């Protein structure tokens, strides 16, 4: 067996990775909670975000932690536009159509990226990429600690946005009772697009936090999409706290699974958890509403 120190290190690393997973899942669950749709383009949009951060660094020389302040609003606008002018009108309110439209979108995005940039895997070397801090014997990557802290702050910000602002109130109203919200003068199409924009902005931020320790290629989003779905399902579709807890949980499962069974089977453990949860308790482990 492994020494306790290694196990603790694996758990902590899992938590740190899980935080970024949680951020990706946060976007997905937000979109699900309000629009009640499954966004299959989520992974592909993350890939776009990673490419954007990559080129911001390579071409403009922007550090990812600086670029995030441009990328996040940019991706908000992108998500808003996609939902308002493409997904919404094309799907005409049918859930199955939404699945297929977002799937089609994902295929188009991934393959255009493949066409433009080929299958090469790219990385960037930011100054702090490999710095580590020693916390009580466990070596932690600085960028992953930053990522973790950023996710916590973002979750709080998102929570505040939902609870304290008028837009947040409108989003919650639409999520609860679409028709009622519409009757009281809320522009549902606008709120849908705003929510989609917020979910996409989460991806922009996640990309900035990921890239110092991660890579980018046209299909990288695929490896995240089922993980993100797993987290969303674990946490209960539409639940923000569920996404955060689910993300941390999946991060730890993957990290420990990888430690005990190797990397490929570590991934397998996530999918098995996913299938099991869906089969046994599709409302999620953390008791969120169905």
């Amino acid at each position, binding site marked *: 067996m492994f020494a306790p120190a290694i196990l603790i290190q694996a758990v902590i690393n899992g938590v740190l990775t899980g935080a970024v997973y949680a951020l990706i899942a946060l976007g997905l669950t937000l979109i699900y909670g309000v629009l009640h*749709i*499954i966004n299959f383009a989520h992974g592909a949009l993350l890939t776009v975000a990673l490419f954007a951060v990559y080129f911001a660094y390579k071409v403009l020389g922007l550090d990812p932690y600086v670029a995030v302040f441009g990328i996040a609003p940019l991706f908000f606008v992108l998500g808003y536009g996609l939902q308002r002018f*493409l997904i919404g*009108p*094309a*799907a005409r309110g049918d*859930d*199955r*159509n939404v*699945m*297929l*439209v977002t*799937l*089609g*979108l*994902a*295929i*188009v*995005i*991934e*393959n*255009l*990226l*493949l*066409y433009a940039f*080929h*299958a090469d895997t790219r990385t960037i070397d930011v100054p702090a990429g490999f710095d580590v801090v020693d916390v009580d014997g466990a070596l932690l990557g600085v960028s992953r600690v930053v990522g973790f802290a950023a996710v916590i702050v973002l979750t709080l910000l998102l929570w505040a946005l939902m609870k304290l602002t008028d837009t947040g109130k409108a989003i919650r109203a639409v999520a609860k009772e679409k028709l009622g919200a519409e009757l009281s003068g809320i522009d549902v199409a606008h709120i849908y697009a705003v929510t989609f924009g917020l979910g996409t902005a989460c991806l922009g931020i996640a990309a900035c936090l990921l890239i110092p320790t991660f890579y980018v290629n*046209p299909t990288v989003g*695929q490896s995240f999409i*089922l993980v993100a*779905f797993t987290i969303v*399902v674990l946490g209960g579709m539409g639940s923000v706290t569920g996404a955060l807890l689910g993300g941390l949980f999946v991060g730890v499962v993957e990290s420990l699974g990888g430690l005990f069974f190797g990397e*490929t*089977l570590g*991934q*397998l453990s996530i*999918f*098995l958890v*996913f*299938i099991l949860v*869906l*089969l*046994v308790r*599709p409302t999620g482990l953390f008791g969120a509403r169905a």
Partner: protein
Amino acid sequence: MKGWLAILAVSAVLTCVPLAGASNVTLNFLVVAMLAALVGQGWNILGGYGGQYSFGHAAFFGTGAYATAILQMRYGVNAWVAFGCGIAAGAIVGGIIGFLVFRSGLKGSYFALVTLAFAEVLRIVASVTPITGAGVGTLIKLDIRPEAFQFQSRAVYYWIILLLVVLSLVIAERLEQTRFGARLMAVRENEDSARALGVDVFAVKIGATLLSAAITAAAGCFYAQYFLFVDSSIAFGSRVSVEALLAPIVGGSGTVFGALAGALAVRSLGEVAKIVAGDAPGIDLAIYGAVLVAVIAFAPRGIVGLGATLWARLRPREQVGLAGSSGRG
């Protein structure tokens, strides 16, 4: 009766293509298009007629392909027998997945997600277990004899896959006429109403999954036999799952000819794209994705639906004929 005549006419025309002196390249294109049509028809039974949108039909395709290849290469089973076993294996996997998933009452988006996850699990397992050849894949030994299901002429392969496609058309046509098909469509339209009318929803869904999985597995078996090679991403990759739903949705889901029309259309587009853009990776799939979005936005009933609409518009014009023609201008 009209439906049967249409199937007869279409299969007669398609049967004659090799006789008209089609080149090997054309035949290869047609074989691959028919393969896509067969995979799509499998999806169409469950997704089009049953309303259960699977995003993981690769699970059945891959099972068929691997079963055919492994039984031949590791256990010396005759290729034709292995083909049959492959279909059965696909149906069994379909039965197991269907049982688990429908027992838990998963539908809609959840159904799509869980089927996707099953296909991914199979892909990962196939990429590491020794019996599938792990990352290397499984090669079927070249042995060009009819007994070994290997032929010199591509035309023979084409006729075999065409026969399978025609069989799948017949199955869909039967589905539209039998009680089982009516129950399946009732489940698609409104599950609760169907149950209230006494339809055993669970049994109907399982039946449709078995049929759907068997058809898609047959395509997988044929793939292995035609290309003589299977690996985990070919067999269980998401590309198969995407193409499975693409063909019937583009062609017209829940129709007899939808998958066939869609597969021919989509594959032709892919070829045109390759000619225009060169053989660059990704361009054909990018176009498939765009077609998928465009079809849902502008032609939700697919090519078959478009055809029906056009036909309906043309006919009254003919009937009104002389009287109405000036008014239409």
